[in-house]
């Protein structure tokens, strides 16, 4: 094993900043990351074994123990639960002969839950090894397992026609695009990237940045930082090297537009990155691709290769003194890596822990150098702004929110999928467009956004100063149990908290317990008051955006739907607190007694 690991290490020049890639290669080879391999890595990388475990154990998709020849991850999201998740789970357990979180006796199947895998328009869905299966029924799920048992691999089952992985047909076989409207900015067919880049390179970098500044485009990842300003800071920042990173770690539950952009318009994204590199003076770019989109990797590599072939990437791009390379960095399963500093840590082979800011990545990012991190959609939009001009873009949308954006729509509607909307459109208009059925609530921007009431907020508009949407829109009709949804979201944050700071690590658990207490009918008004206070505490004192957002499912539903909470509250009667569970407190003795007496008799 030592020499095999050595070979992998050599491939990465024993560079510990490539630890994530190295671990993926090891896991690919052995099915998990064996202790012996970790020891070899420890020597090769001059890291203690525990240091390597730090990274391994941070990521959901790395396994330090045998975890099944086929690893099956069933997406456990609110949307999946609305569409039959429970039945699929049961079918899988039955078919695989093991429960979730375990490996079957033969070591063939490992069943795992995972959070949203970016397929909310076609749930229930599961990842099996490197591919995905969507729109699952219990029968379809069992069939997949049956075929795996017969020795076929997941790829053969998902892709029976044998499409090449570098082909878009391969991606299309696995997942649907579901683009429902053609807007002015995205998914434009037959673009001449070469001519466009020529046009761009005729401009001075400062002119490119000025164009973006005038267009008023703001980052599409959610925070809405002005892109022109970020690039200006990047240009002005001092560093021997600068980096451009495309954040394709689309982890917010309910969003999948980056997946579709990368599938349908990868060139737009690559071109946007090249423009950024030109503008700030960078020679190296990274696409940070979440593991859940593993099936896009070869296709994207092919697209990148196409750009090299056309002279749009590599050395002396289009004959100019401008070199730029792009590589793909696979993630390994951590929502928090959507935070740009956590993403950078992950690119450096470490735990995806958000950094302390300042310094900001645009000053000191990847490998300590100025780094411009933008969302997939931002890069795609930039490529269109350079093509059509700043005025064209600015005239769309509203004063402070220019242009359009993509929405990933899921939940209770006729046509889940991708919609391009102009900023300024109202919630009601969007709901009508997507064919929402008796909508009661809409979750704007996923769990980290806000839950709005269709009745009270229908006329609110999508823009940075009102419904500032990061691309996720989930629709819930009147039959949905919002408290259960809130609980699911809170559990998501508990799962995904990196644990580096106290409020997020400790506080989210207490908030989850509060909502569980409400659901169990053991909460009184004091619990709600505490929930608000603790929520505010976590929001204000956490280190990164995850903690700043995590109490929002509770806080926003409490504000918009107070009645669903009030309905569940109990009035304290007598001295005992409603939260005190007398049954649970008293049953332990009896259970312990019976177990020991039973043992005695055997």
């Amino acid at each position, binding site marked *: 094993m030592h020499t095999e690991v050595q070979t992998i290490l050599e491939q990465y020049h024993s560079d510990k900043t490539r630890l994530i890639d190295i671990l993926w290669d090891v896991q690919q080879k052995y099915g998990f990351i064996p202790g012996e391999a970790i020891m070899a890595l420890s020597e090769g990388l*001059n*890291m*203690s*074994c*525990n*240091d390597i*475990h*730090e990274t391994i*154990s*941070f990521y959901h998709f790395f396994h330090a123990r045998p975890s099944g020849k086929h690893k099956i991850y069933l997406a456990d999201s609110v949307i999946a639960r609305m569409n039959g998740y429970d039945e699929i789970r049961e079918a899988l357990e039955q078919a695989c002969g093991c429960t979730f979180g375990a490996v079957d006796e033969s070591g063939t199947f490992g069943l795992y839950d995972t959070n949203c895998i970016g397929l909310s328009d076609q749930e229930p869905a599961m990842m099996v090894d490197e591919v995905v299966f969507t729109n699952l029924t219990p029968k379809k799920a069992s069939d997949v397992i049956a075929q795996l048992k017969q020795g076929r691999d997941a790829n053969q089952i998902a892709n029976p026609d044998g499409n090449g992985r570098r082909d878009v047909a391969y991606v299309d076989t696995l997942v649907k695009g579901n683009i429902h409207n053609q807007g002015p900015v995205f998914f434009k067919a037959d673009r001449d990237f070469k001519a466009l880049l020529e046009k761009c390179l005729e401009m001075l970098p400062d002119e490119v940045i000025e164009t973006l500044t005038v267009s008023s485009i703001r980052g599409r990842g959610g925070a809405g930082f002005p892109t022109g300003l970020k690039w200006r800071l990047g240009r002005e920042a001092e560093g021997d090297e600068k980096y451009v990173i495309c954040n394709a770690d689309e982890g917010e539950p309910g969003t999948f537009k980056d997946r579709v952009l990368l599938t349908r318009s990868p060139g737009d994204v690559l071109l946007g990155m090249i423009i950024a590199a030109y503008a700030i003076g960078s020679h190296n770019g990274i696409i940070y691709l979440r593991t859940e989109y593993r099936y896009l990797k070869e296709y994207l590599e092919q697209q990148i290769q196409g750009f090299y072939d056309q002279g749009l990437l590599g050395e002396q791009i289009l004959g100019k003194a401008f070199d730029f390379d792009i590589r793909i960095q696979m993630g390994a399963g*951590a929502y928090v890596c959507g935070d740009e500093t956590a993403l950078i840590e992950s690119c450096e082979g470490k*735990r995806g822990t958000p950094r*302390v*800011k*300042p310094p900001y990545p645009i000053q000191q990012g990847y490998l300590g150098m100025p780094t411009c991190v933008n969302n997939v959609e931002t890069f795609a939009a930039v490529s269109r702004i350079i093509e059509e001009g700043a005025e064209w873009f600015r005239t769309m949308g509203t004063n402070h929110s220019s242009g359009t954006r993509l929405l990933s729509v899921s939940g209770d509607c006729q046509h889940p999928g991708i919609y391009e909307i102009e900023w300024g459109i109202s919630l009601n208009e969007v709901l009508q467009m997507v064919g929402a059925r008796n909508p009661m609530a809409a979750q704007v921007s996923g769990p980290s956004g806000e839950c709005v009431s269709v009745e009270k907020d229908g006329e609110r508009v999508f823009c940075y100063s009102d419904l500032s949407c990061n691309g996720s829109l989930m629709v819930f009709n009147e039959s949905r149990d919002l408290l259960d949804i809130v609980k699911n979201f809170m559990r998501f944050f*508990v*799962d*995904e*908290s*990196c*644990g*580096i*700071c*106290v*409020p997020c*690590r*400790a*506080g989210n*658990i*207490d908030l989850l*317990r509060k909502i569980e207490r409400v659901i169990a009918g053991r909460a009184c008004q004091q619990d709600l008051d*505490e929930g608000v206070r*603790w929520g505010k*505490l976590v929001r*204000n*004192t*956490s*280190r990164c955006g995850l903690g700043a957002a995590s109490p929002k499912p509770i806080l926003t539903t409490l504000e918009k739907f107070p009645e669903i909470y009030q309905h569940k509250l109990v009035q304290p009667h007598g001295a005992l607190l409603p939260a005190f569970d007398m049954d649970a407190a008293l049953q332990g003795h009896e259970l312990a007694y019976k177990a020991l007496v039973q043992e005695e008799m055997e």
Partner: protein
Amino acid sequence: MSIRITIDGNEIITQDGATLVDVAAENGIYIPTLCHLKGKPCLGTCRICSVRVNGNVMAACTVPVSDGLEVEVDEPEVSDMRKALVEFLFVEGNHNCPSCEKSGRCDLQALGCELGMMVSRFPYRFPVRIRDHAAKRIWLERDRCIFCQRCVQFIRDRETSRKIFSIKDRGTHASIEIDIELADKMPPEQIREAAELCPVGCIIEKGVGYNDPIGRRKYEIKSIRERALERKRK
């Protein structure tokens, strides 16, 4: 460059870019800390130095001061947040002061007293955390770890600079780990350094503890507040 900021309304003249928590201490204003070590890279993990900066709550150890900053330390809401963060730590692990070797010289305990914590307002969790006593001279009492990361970042093997302490898993499942082989190579003064660096009783030097009688222990002789202000003024 000399700049002016205000802390609780008092004007302070200081150097641009200095760390807020240090600036405050130099001027006799105590902001509690647990993970911060003056002169070392900012860890920013405990958030106990949270204060209001121009209206926003920020951890004072992460804030480089700039001209015109308006800082509120002694403001009821943010003071209560600092106290609440300490309370979180007391329920998250098992902090049984009466049976702890570090009692009387524990930063967390001293802060709890300093901030007037009588009880935690959060539910006590009693997590199961297995202690690790395999190293020859270090006892790792995981019940007490607060994940400040001081040991992880600042205690390295002197020969290879590899990590001796590390964190496994994430979020609420995180646990502090020790590399036994490297730990057993640590010279005695480095063990002492690690034990003293640990703000709680998680890293304990075997055979050390309960040395000073009650009433004459570190923080009984001089409170954590006095020590912080005194150290910074030097």
